[in-house]
């Protein structure tokens, strides 16, 4: 049994002070017990933030019914062990409370040393054993949880998963970069829900989506009357994220004067609401994301260098989907299963022609685009197997001016081959398969291309 190092906190809620003192005396015979007495239900409830492990509750209090107090204790934290103390004649009520979630009961005339100790020891065991089992369970599932929400097996993603684990185990600031749709927000959420902060809030704010003049009050909150329209006091995202995670999306779009305020908040670990004087401490992990190159913004003077270094923390770069090789198919299957389930389409699969088509595409919109393509494909598909004609690629192609350039056929050919090679990490067997030509043809074309210098474009 793993006991907390700082002792077992026990609350006695009892309006009879003499009796309360007596059981407090008994319980503190064990020096590990830290006992507090409250005379009313309200007093007990307003001290629950002290996180008692065990509450000994008189079922009939002057201000509230035992029923109510029990309910609110368990709502605060179901792990708190509650012992009901009742008179001999009120055992029926006590038993009723057992059914409503109390952990044990004792009649007051039986409240002698042995009985009290037995009951407390029993509770300690069940509470802390349960805790231990829970943490064990959590530790076990931890390993799997990232790959449950984030699919992928490519070497590039394996590296990302390693970083995610590091991030989840610590409190470090994390900066996530990657093209649009690569999963930056998903990464932020996965870190939060796999970290010790998961019981706190995950609060996300997209800097580019919020009008510039509202952003400051969204982040820091405001006092009533701070500006026209501030009819009530409002808590900012920093406060809402207390004990949780604050995700600042598209951080590169933040204006310089707000960057200064953000930097101050991060340095001091406290904020001031707009129009207020009081400083408010916050305890939130910060995760930022951007699809832009922040260091470039720094050198252009659009992003503060000091803030850049403060936010860099543990950088996680998400590779574009076209650099994740076979992950395209893993993800496609994952999205197909999900959409088939959601739309009750029954089990579906990807045909070979569909797979080939997916592998030959470069996904400028990355995973978000793949997801949309698969979802549409599942609906377009007549049978149970998705074929190439079910898949529609709508994103604007960079190569629209392909035919505007005057090139020889040989030049067109080599351009096509080079395009696919770049997309597939120079993986010649895959490109050969996609283009329906032999590997040796590709080697030959590349060799020829080196011998005949490419036409300037």
């Amino acid at each position, binding site marked *: 049994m793993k006991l907390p190092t700082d002792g077992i906190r026990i609350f006695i809620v009892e309006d009879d002070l003499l009796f309360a003192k*007596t059981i407090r005396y008994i319980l503190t015979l064990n020096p590990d017990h830290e006992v507090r007495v409250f005379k009313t239900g309200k007093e007990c409830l307003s001290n629950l933030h002290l996180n008692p492990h065990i509450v000994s509750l008189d079922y009939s209090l002057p201000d509230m019914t035992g029923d109510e107090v029990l309910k609110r204790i368990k709502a605060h934290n179901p792990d708190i062990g509650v012992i009901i103390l009742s*008179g001999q004649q009120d055992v029926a009520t006590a038993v009723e409370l057992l059914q409503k979630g109390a952990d044990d009961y004792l009649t*007051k005339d039986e409240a002698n040393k042995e009985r009290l100790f037995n009951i407390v020891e029993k509770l300690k065991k069940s509470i802390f054993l349960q805790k231990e089992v829970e943490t064990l369970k959590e530790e076990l599932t931890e390993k799997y949880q990232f790959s449950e929400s984030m699919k992928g097996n490519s070497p590039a993603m394996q590296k990302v998963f390693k970083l995610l684990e590091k991030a989840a185990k610590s409190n470090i600031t994390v900066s996530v970069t990657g093209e649009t749709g690569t999963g930056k927000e998903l990464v932020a959420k996965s870190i939060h829900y796999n970290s010790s902060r998961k019981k706190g809030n995950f609060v996300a704010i997209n800097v580019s989506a919020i009008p510039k003049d509202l952003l400051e009050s969204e982040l820091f909150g405001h006092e009533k009357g701070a500006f026209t329209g501030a009819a009530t006091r409002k808590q900012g995202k920093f406060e809402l994220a207390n004990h949780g995670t604050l995700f600042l999306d598209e951080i590169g779009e933040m204006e310089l004067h707000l960057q200064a305020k953000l930097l101050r908040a991060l340095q001091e670990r406290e904020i001031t609401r707009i129009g207020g004087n009081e400083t408010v401490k916050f305890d939130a992990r910060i995760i930022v994301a951007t699809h832009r190159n922040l260091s470039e913004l720094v050198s252009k003077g659009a992003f503060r260098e000091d803030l850049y270094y403060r936010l860099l923390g543990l950088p996680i770069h998400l590779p574009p989907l076209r650099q994740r090789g076979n992950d395209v198919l893993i993800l496609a299957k994952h999205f197909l299963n999900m959409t088939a389930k959601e739309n009750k389409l029954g089990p579906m699969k990807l045909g070979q022609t569909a797979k080939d088509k997916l592998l030959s595409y470069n996904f400028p919109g990355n995973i978000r685009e793949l997801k949309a393509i698969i979802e549409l494909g599942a609906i377009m598909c007549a049978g149970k197997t998705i074929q190439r004609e079910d898949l529609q690629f709508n994103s604007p192609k960079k190569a629209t001016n392909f035919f505007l350039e005057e090139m020889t056929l040989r030049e067109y050919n080599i351009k096509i081959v080079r395009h696919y090679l770049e997309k597939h990490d120079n993986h010649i067997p895959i490109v050969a398969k996609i283009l329906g030509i032999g590997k040796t043809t590709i080697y030959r074309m590349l060799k020829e291309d080196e011998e005949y210098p490419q036409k300037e474009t």
Partner: protein
Amino acid sequence: MNLTLDLTFLKEISDGDQDFINDVLHTFLDEMPKDMAQMNQAIMDKDIVMIGRMAHKTKSTLQTLGLFELKELALKIEQLAKQTPSDTNIIPLSQKFMGHIDRVYPNVKESLK
């Protein structure tokens, strides 16, 4: 009615720790008059529910000090108040109870060392 304190329980749990026992007895002398004042008010108001509640509250104290007969009386008042709140015996019974408590105080003081 036996109004002599029986401190066996308190001595047993505290290994005869007189400081602790004194603290408990002082608590009685501080708290019980307040409860009795409330009970008295309830008697004047004919507030049966309140009478029952105060009787209930004293039970654990009386039990702890070994005043078992008084505790039985408190229980009787509590139950009457709950089951037959119209019973005219409740008021005189409560007054009698209060009189007994008055006579307990000197015994408590005597037990202080």
